[in-house]
């Protein structure tokens, strides 16, 4: 009999006043006992609606059954059949819009905590499990993967599991893409990302860092070097600015730079050389998950006040509810319906304040959300010494402009056929934010997975 408790088993986490001063992980994960209790809430529906909500099709009820039976290692291997990065997905997937949204238990009370259970299985495996069974016979075909973020790693992992010799090319000195440079330590510890990458390496995936494809090697040269297909998962890495006066002042960061300094370059640690300003009053502009990450990071660097400035209302914020909730608990202030118009500097060209205007909501725009309209004469200023622009990224044009025959749309996103992820250039596939514009880790993984299937079909048909 399933446990009919309408509430998700709570996951232990660090208290807000403690965690806002350290970079350790906020959510601490289930114990075996808590995991079993939560697993018992699954109804094991015949039609498995949860699986339909998962971009990579994890066999959810199966792995939950293993956990309920006390077989966490078995649960991990079930997840791993379709998901290369379980410990990552268990932490950063927006489950509330995917698997858990479809959970029948969610109709009366909370859905089953699928993400929390996935994380539990993955963490259990990292502590106690073994990876050996993933060795497969090589099929003699070579595939190049450009970019080692979630799309690239998933594509590489799936292809390696089919027997392909896969080489992943990464521009930075560490693999992981946004998982390493973007998502903060307190939400996704870098040690966990590293473990997942090491596990792919053991599976035979080669990772070459410090390689900017499009500069040091072109896509054509990858083909000349014997790669039969190329996957592009270079992400949406070009930060947007608002083009308002004052964005060139000292103390204005893109969220990419702010987070990269802290996450990849570990500016928060004494033993690293990376400099970062230690601001006292910070405004973070935007309303997405990256905005929350930047705001919470600013608190942890020692800021006294951190304000999120967002031009629409709370209901329209694209950030996950959980992230907003965590940010509020930690003391982040929210200025909704406010839009920056100018950043003012002091006599040394450093940020002194940010001038905003109040907004009201008008008719829905193309995104279906009500369009924010400035209220004439409602300007106000926040005294700040740092502004972080977290208003999104565009796809990086570097590889596209260096590759003949690779078409992009007007937003700079690489054009692919739905489901197959084929680009306009034969043998070249793409997925993730490079195709969709800024989206989620799991959608990128889903795309990487679809691309791996297509690449396999393409190479088989050819040989």
């Amino acid at each position, binding site marked *: 009999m399933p446990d009919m408790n309408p509430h998700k088993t709570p996951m232990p986490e660090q208290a807000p006043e403690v965690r806002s001063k350290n970079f350790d992980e906020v959510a601490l994960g289930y114990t075996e006992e808590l995991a079993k209790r939560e697993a018992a809430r699954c109804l094991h529906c015949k039609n498995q609606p949860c699986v339909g909500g998962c971009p990579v099709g994890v066999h959810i009820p199966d792995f939950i059954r293993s956990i309920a039976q006390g077989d966490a290692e078995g649960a991990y291997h079930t997840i791993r059949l379709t998901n290369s990065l379980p410990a990552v997905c268990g932490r950063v997937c927006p489950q509330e819009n995917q698997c858990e949204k479809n959970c029948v238990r969610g109709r009366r009370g909370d859905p089953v905590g699928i993400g929390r259970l996935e994380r539990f299985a993955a963490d259990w495996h990292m502590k106690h499990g073994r990876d050996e069974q993933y060795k497969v016979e090589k099929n003699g075909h070579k595939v190049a993967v450009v970019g080692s973020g979630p799309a690239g790693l998933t594509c590489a992992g799936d292809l390696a599991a089919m027997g392909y010799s896969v080489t992943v090319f990464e521009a930075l000195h560490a693999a992981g893409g946004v998982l390493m440079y973007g998502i903060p330590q307190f939400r996704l510890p870098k040690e966990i990302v590293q473990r997942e990458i090491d596990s792919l390496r053991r599976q035979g995936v080669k990772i070459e860092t410090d390689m900017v494809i499009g500069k040091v090697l072109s896509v054509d040269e990858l083909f000349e070097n014997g790669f039969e297909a190329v996957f592009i998962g270079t992400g949406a890495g070009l930060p947007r600015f608002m083009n308002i006066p004052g964005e060139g002042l*000292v103390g204005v960061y893109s969220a990419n730079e702010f987070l990269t300094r802290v996450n990849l370059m570990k500016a928060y640690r004494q033993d*690293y050389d990376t*400099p970062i300003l230690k601001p006292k009053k910070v405004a973070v502009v935007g309303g997405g998950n990256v905005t929350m990450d930047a705001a919470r990071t600013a608190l942890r660097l020692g800021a006294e006040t951190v304000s999120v400035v967002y031009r629409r209302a709370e209901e329209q914020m694209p950030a996950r509810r959980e992230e907003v909730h965590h940010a509020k608990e930690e003391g982040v202030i929210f200025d909704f319906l406010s839009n920056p118009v100018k950043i003012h500097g002091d006599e040394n060209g450093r940020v002194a304040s940010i001038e905003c205007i109040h907004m009201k909501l008008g008719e829905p725009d193309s995104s279906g959300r009500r369009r924010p309209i400035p209220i004439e004469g409602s300007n106000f200023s926040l005294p700040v010494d740092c502004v972080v622009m977290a208003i999104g990224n565009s796809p990086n044009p570097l590889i596209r402009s260096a590759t003949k025959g690779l078409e992009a749309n007007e937003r700079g996103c690489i054009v692919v056929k739905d489901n197959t992820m084929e680009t306009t250039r034969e043998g070249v596939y793409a997925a993730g934010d490079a195709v969709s514009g800024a989206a989620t880790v799991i959608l990128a993984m889903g795309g990487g997975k679809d691309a791996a299937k297509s690449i396999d079909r393409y190479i088989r048909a050819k040989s």
Partner: protein
Amino acid sequence: MFPILKKRRLNDSMTLMVVRAPLIARKAHAGQFIILRVNEQGERIPLTIADYDREQGTVTIIYQIVGKTTLLLDQLNEGDSILDFVGPLGKPSHLEGYQNAAVIGGGAGCAIAYPQAKTLHARGAKVDIIAGFRTKDLIILEDEMRAASDRLFLMTDDGSNGHKGFVTDALKKNIEAGAGYDLVVAIGPLVMMRAVCNLTKKYGIKTIISMNPIMIDGTGMCGGCRLTVGGKTRFACVDGPDFDGQEVDFDEAIRRSRTYSEMERKSAQEFKCRLLEEAKNA
């Protein structure tokens, strides 16, 4: 890892290194840069490529010891390796179609100005090199610059080489004397490049400068290297590093270049003390 094949001191604070990086050497062009990292805890710093040899598979860098990272780099010797070495980044310089150029280098900037002069000279353009240093002892690449130019003007701030003055003094003199430059290339400290651009603007001479701002990835991701050019935001790493100098907002670039100067000074000082301490104990 990228082995250091050759290390040569150019003066008290500047060093040349020839680094084995065959893939980068194969693709490098004048004006592009690399990013390096010395150790796991280290920063990523951009350095303009001073030279390359496609056959030997080497890239030459010249650095001035200014902070902890360059101090750390300078601890490495021939036979040691640099942990990370990425490139070639940025766009190559476009110096085609010019007949009569003044190439201006300031201090360490001469290391980058010199290959530009060499390229122009080899292409048949008339080239004057104007190189400025604080004092005589800091002069680098004198023979090389002489060989790559029709005329070499060596200036020192203190006049210790017999030619007291700034590069702009020599440039102005040449222009007034009817040098007839159709291009000025200026590479050096931001204040020097600003002074050159202010001068050439008056004479309407096209001026190309090379920016070397703070950056992390060098591929357009962090936006830390942004500058205002002709009123628009540009990223030095992907849109540059060469820009039309008369369009650049130098005041902003100078302020931004000093973002971390306080921290950098402190960090370099602490590291120097540590090196002294280690030397004493050794």
